[in-house]
């Protein structure tokens, strides 16, 4: 296996930077192309549509400057780690809003993503190994059924069934409202209990596709010559699976996992809505609806950054786990 060269890392890094710049520029342009003036909207909501008030707000937000000056300020701010100040939540910095919301998003999305991949890998592998068995038929059949169900419906079923009617789990929130939770572990337990339904819903809907993919990968690998050779050599089935089949079958799934982790900061809007769960998804949606340019830009900048960073990381890891990937 070849080692990673400096040239390879530099090429990937420059490519990542360029991708990031394109994404950040779109972040700047897209909200402004939606139509509607945030200052006039605020004036119409609270100040009898006063033109003077709208102008004062425009000056406060820096919207009276030319589009190029706004773009230069935006990029300049980003370089210094300044994401600007939210319009609708003025004078709260966008970075404060994001840092407040994002840990909750990461908590449920990352746990559910990892759990979902783990379970999908296990079930997919077992189904492939027992191809044609009742377990395989059940797993594949159920997967197709689950995959056709929209996420919000699964979420609502869980809230109404396990939350509202049975009362086994809380219907929403990240913690019990108003509860006095003494020590760290009591809080951690309370948070974990509240995260159960959101995580479960995300696992259920994402499991099927990943499981089918893993099953197909294993089946494909098992038809390769080197597996036939390994079987002919009389190697044990478990050894063939762990030493030869799994390592190759997991490669496409690894790409999927890295992409999912990169997108995790984008949040899960439907989860936040259905379970009244704090997070970045709803913040982004409301920022878009209220034309809060800095907040939209800030959120998408973080998403772009994390997707680009994780992809860069995947580019670095891939040659290590798959020697066929060229480093040039």
């Amino acid at each position, binding site marked *: 296996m070849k080692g990673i060269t400096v040239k390879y890392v530099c090429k990937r890094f420059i490519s990542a930077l360029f991708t990031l710049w394109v994404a950040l520029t779109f972040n700047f342009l897209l909200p402004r192309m939606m139509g509607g003036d945030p200052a006039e909207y605020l004036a119409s909501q609270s100040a009898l549509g006063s033109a003077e008030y709208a102008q004062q707000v425009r000056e406060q937000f820096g919207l009276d400057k030319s589009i190029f000056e706004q773009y230069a300020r935006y990029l300049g701010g980003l370089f210094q780690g300044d994401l600007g100040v939210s319009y609708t939540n003025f004078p709260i910095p966008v970075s404060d809003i994001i840092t407040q919301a994002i840990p909750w998003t990461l908590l449920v999305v990352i746990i559910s993503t990892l759990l979902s991949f783990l379970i999908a890998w296990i079930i997919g592998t077992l189904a492939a190994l027992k191809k044609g068995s009742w377990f395989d038929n059940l797993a594949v059949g159920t997967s197709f059924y689950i995959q056709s169900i929209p996420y919000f419906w699964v979420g609502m079923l869980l809230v109404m069934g396990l939350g509202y009617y049975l009362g086994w789990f809380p219907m929403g929130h*990240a913690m019990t409202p108003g509860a006095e939770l003494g020590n760290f572990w009591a809080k951690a337990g309370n948070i974990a209990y509240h995260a159960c339904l959101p995580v479960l819903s995300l696992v259920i809907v994402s499991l099927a596709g990943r499981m089918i993919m893993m099953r197909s990968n294993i089946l494909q690998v098992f038809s390769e010559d080197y597996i036939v050779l390994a079987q002919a050599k009389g190697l044990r089935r478990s050894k063939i699976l762990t030493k030869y089949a799994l390592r190759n079958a997991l490669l496409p799934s690894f790409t999927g996992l890295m992409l999912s982790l990169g997108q995790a900061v984008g949040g899960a809007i439907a989860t936040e809505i259905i379970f009244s769960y704090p997070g970045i998804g709803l913040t982004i949606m409301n920022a878009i609806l209220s034309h809060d340019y800095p907040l939209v830009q800030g959120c998408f900048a973080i998403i772009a950054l994390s997707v680009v960073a994780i992809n860069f990381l995947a580019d670095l890891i891939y040659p290590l786990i798959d020697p066929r990937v060229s480093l040039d």
Partner: protein
Amino acid sequence: MKKRKLSALLALVLALLLALSGCSGGTGGSSSASSKADAPESSKAEAPVSSKAEEPASSAEESEPEAQGTATGGTLRMGAYVLDTQMSNKSPFATSGTFTDMLDILYEPLFTFNEKKGELEPALATEYSWNDGFTELTFTINPDVKWHDGTAFSAEDVACTMQILKDVPTFDQYALWDKLSDVKADGDKVVFTCSQPFTALPRYLTKVKIVPKHIWENEDAENFINETPVGTGPFAWDKYTVGTSVELTAFKDYWNGAPKVDKMLIVLYNTSPNTTLGLLNGEIDCTTGTIAMSSIPEFTSKEFAQMDIYAGLGNFSVLINHENELLSDVAVRKAMAMAINQPELISRGEYNGVLPTSIGWLPDLFGDYVSEEAKNSLAFDLEAAQKVLEDAGYTKGDDGIYQKDGKRLSFTYHNASGAPAQQMEAGMIQQWLLNLGVEIIPKLATWPELTSLAQTGKYDLLQMGINFPPDPYAALNSCFNSSMTAPAGESTPGLNYFRYRSDEMDGLLEQASAETDEEKLKDLYYQMQDLLAKDYVFLPMYNSSGHIPYYDGAAVTGWTDYEASVKSNRNLINVRPVG
């Protein structure tokens, strides 16, 4: 062994994420509510001297109508549709992005506006009086008021608050300082000097929450986010748990009597359906006014459930662009207004949880200023509506659409995207207009886009809400004065998105702006509303009414219907646990 390693790893990941989440609890500490005090006397309000001033509620009977209950303690659990982002800034001056219902509990104005009665009621001031020329307004400060940190309230606090509004123009949303020249504290009085007669000033001041000088004078008010609010309201700030709840504690020194519950827990929900589910499930005792309208029948069928429905300071309507050649014909506007079945719109679209918008514009909360004649002048009658068009020379084409001189009655109709109820109601109205013989081309836009289209006149028909302050003059002037509009393509300087221009209306508004005689003013308002009703300026839908669901008798009781059940501090102090 491997298992132990895995669980250790998972615990580490969870601990890391929890630490990132800031699960250490609230962002603020408890405010130091001062020591226990005896229940204060009833408000010392007296009738204002001015002939224009409203009669304030002054009796103990009204402030404590349920005084027969003796139980105290416990927690009032209120649900609110509020996002975490709205909890970052707790400045009562911010005009967006804050949790205003909570700030209304923590902070108070000099007088409050009773949205059910349309009256001003004393709060931080006991009375007010005008000079003869209505250019000098003097408030007498309520001596019983204390700030949550125990400091005595004074006239200096009011002067400081008004100075902040002057220093930061974006806080002065109604541009009060355009008409004010000075605000001065003088002992237990505070004197507002106006550069011109400004009879509506007391009503506008109900929107100005007073802040403590001893805290705010040391801060840069424009950027001060007020982490731990100190106000004068019946409940004091305790703590906020991210995305979950706000906890307030009863302020025992409250000037109008200590609340009968110890605590108020405001549970935050991300959406209206979640808030409703919490209410139906009994997680909360009331909401700040949020309920999924389609759940009203289910909620009201529950034991102890009550709905408080009253007029609000805003109207939903279908805006008509009077610069459109066909829509400039009053016959077309009249026929369309008559073709809309307003009672059915309210019953099917809003489950009778709102009140109708009057074709005369002013909602019921303006009491005697509301013209009953204008209000009752419009009734649904499809056949009569078609006759109006035919009498005006319109004929129905083969496609069922009326036309005149080769021009078909075909209009674009904008309404809000991402708002299911608005879209459903738009569908109902569009169908009624089609039944009349008017073609509609539906278009969707976000709220800010709708505002922009309305302001620049790039629409034919547009469905939206318009809000106004508790002043009938402002409600009429900002929406219907021709100086508040602009030619299509230019932004309007006010809310006259209709592009309605009437010399008669302008004249009436000019007279009203200088009128100080109550009866004459009332007559002018009647004439304006009657004129609007005659001109069919817009298609009325419903008032942006208060619709507050609450349980009376389940966990808490003591609500009164004199004021809005949840949104009035006079009401909140009376709520007590059952038993």
